[in-house]
C-alpha cells in the first residue's frame, strides 16, 4: 500500500479546476437548445401530399400507422382532362406510444407527405393521447426544419426532400 501522492493530489487539482471553470448546463425548461435538423423527434404529416397509399403503414415495423381513406372524384386539373379520382384521408394516426422512431415510413413515402421534426415535448399523462391524429400530425408540420446543405464531397442528391 505504497501511497505516493501525485495521483491523489492531481485528482484534487482536476476537480478544483473544473469547479472554477463553471458549469456547462443548459437549463432546459428555461432555456432550450435546438436539436440538430435531422433529429428524429416527431413525424409530421403534410396532409395535402398524402394519397393514402398505405406504403408507410405497410413498411412500418411496429404496425403503428393507422390509415383509413376513401376515394373521391375531383374535377380534372387541366381543361378537358379526365376527372381525377383521389384518395382522401379519413384517418391518419400514428401511435407514438409504439413507434420506434426508425424513420422507415418517412423514407418510403413516395409523395413527400411525411417529415421528421425535431420536436420532442409531447409527453402525456394519458397513453391514449400519444396516438396523434392527422390534425395533430399536421400541426407538427410547422416545426419541420429546412433541409441542411450537405458536407463537401457529397454527391449531388437526385431527389431532394424538404
Amino acid at each position: 500500500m505504497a501511497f505516493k501522492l501525485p495521483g491523489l493530489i492531481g485528482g484534487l487539482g482536476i476537480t478544483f479546476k473544473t469547479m472554477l471553470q463553471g458549469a456547462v448546463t443548459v437549463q432546459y425548461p428555461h432555456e432550450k437548445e435546438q436539436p440538430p435538423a435531422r433529429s428524429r423527434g416527431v413525424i409530421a404529416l403534410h396532409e395535402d401530399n398524402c394519397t393514402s397509399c398505405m406504403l408507410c403503414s405497410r413498411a412500418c415495423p411496429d404496425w403503428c400507422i393507422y390509415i383509413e381513406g376513401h376515394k373521391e372524384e375531383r374535377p380534372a386539373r387541366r381543361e378537358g382532362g379526365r376527372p381525377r379520382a383521389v384518395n382522401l384521408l379519413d384517418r391518419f394516426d400514428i401511435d407514438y406510444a409504439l413507434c420506434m422512431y426508425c424513420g422507415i415510413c418517412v423514407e418510403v413515402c413516395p409523395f413527400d407527405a411525411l417529415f421528421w421534426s425535431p420536436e420532442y415535448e409531447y409527453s402525456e399523462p394519458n397513453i391514449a393521447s400519444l396516438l396523434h391524429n392527422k390534425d395533430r400530425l399536421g400541426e407538427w408540420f410547422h416545426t419541420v426544419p429546412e433541409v441542411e446543405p450537405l458536407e463537401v464531397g457529397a454527391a449531388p442528391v437526385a431527389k431532394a426532400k424538404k
Partner: protein
Amino acid sequence: MSDLEVLTTRVTEALGDAVIEHAEACGNLVLRVRLDSWRSVAETARNTLGCNYLSFISGIDWMPAPTVGLIEGDTSTPAQPKEMTFGAAGSAGRFQVFAHVQSTVQHIGFTIKADVDEAAPHCDSWVSVYPGADWHERECWEMYGVVFDGHPSLRHLYLPAEFEGHPLRKDFPLLAREVKPWPGLTDVEPMPGSESDEETKDEAVEA
C-alpha cells in the same frame, strides 16, 4: 491457392472422415460433420487446429415457418419459400446445430454444422472442450430444445422457468402478430394507372 482453400484442406485433413460435406459461404468455410463426432471435432479444432476461441454455438430450424404470411397481403412479414430447403453444406433434416470457432493467433475460423434428430434432438456437449459453451448450449436448448448430453446444468437461460415451448423453432407462433390486425390492409382501391397502384401491385406480388 487462396487462403480459404488452404484452410479448407487443412481442416478437412485434420478432421478426416468426420466431415460429411464442406462448402464455402461468402468467404467462410462451412463444414457439416457427423453428429457422433461432434465433440471430437471440437477437440481437434481446439487442440490440432489451434482454434482456441469459441464464437458461438447455436441451432437452426430449416422448416419453413407455418405462421409467416398468415395475413393476406401482409408485406410487413417477409415472404419465405414454403418448401424446406437447406443452406450451405446441406442438412439431413429439420434441425441442425452449428458453431463457429476461431483462432486468436492464426486469425482463422470456420463454421461447423451437425444434423440432429428431429423427434428427439440430442447432441454432445462441448463444455469440457470450451468452457464458454455452457451458456451457448443452454441457450440452444432453450430456443430449439436440443439436449446437450454431458452438459452440467441445462436450465433456462433467458426465459422464466415456467416458460413453455422453444421460441426459435419455426412453429412457435408470435401471438401478438396474430392477434393484432395488420394496419396495412386497406379498403382504398388503387386508382388505375397511378403510381401508387403499381407499387401496391408490386408489393402484392412479392408477398
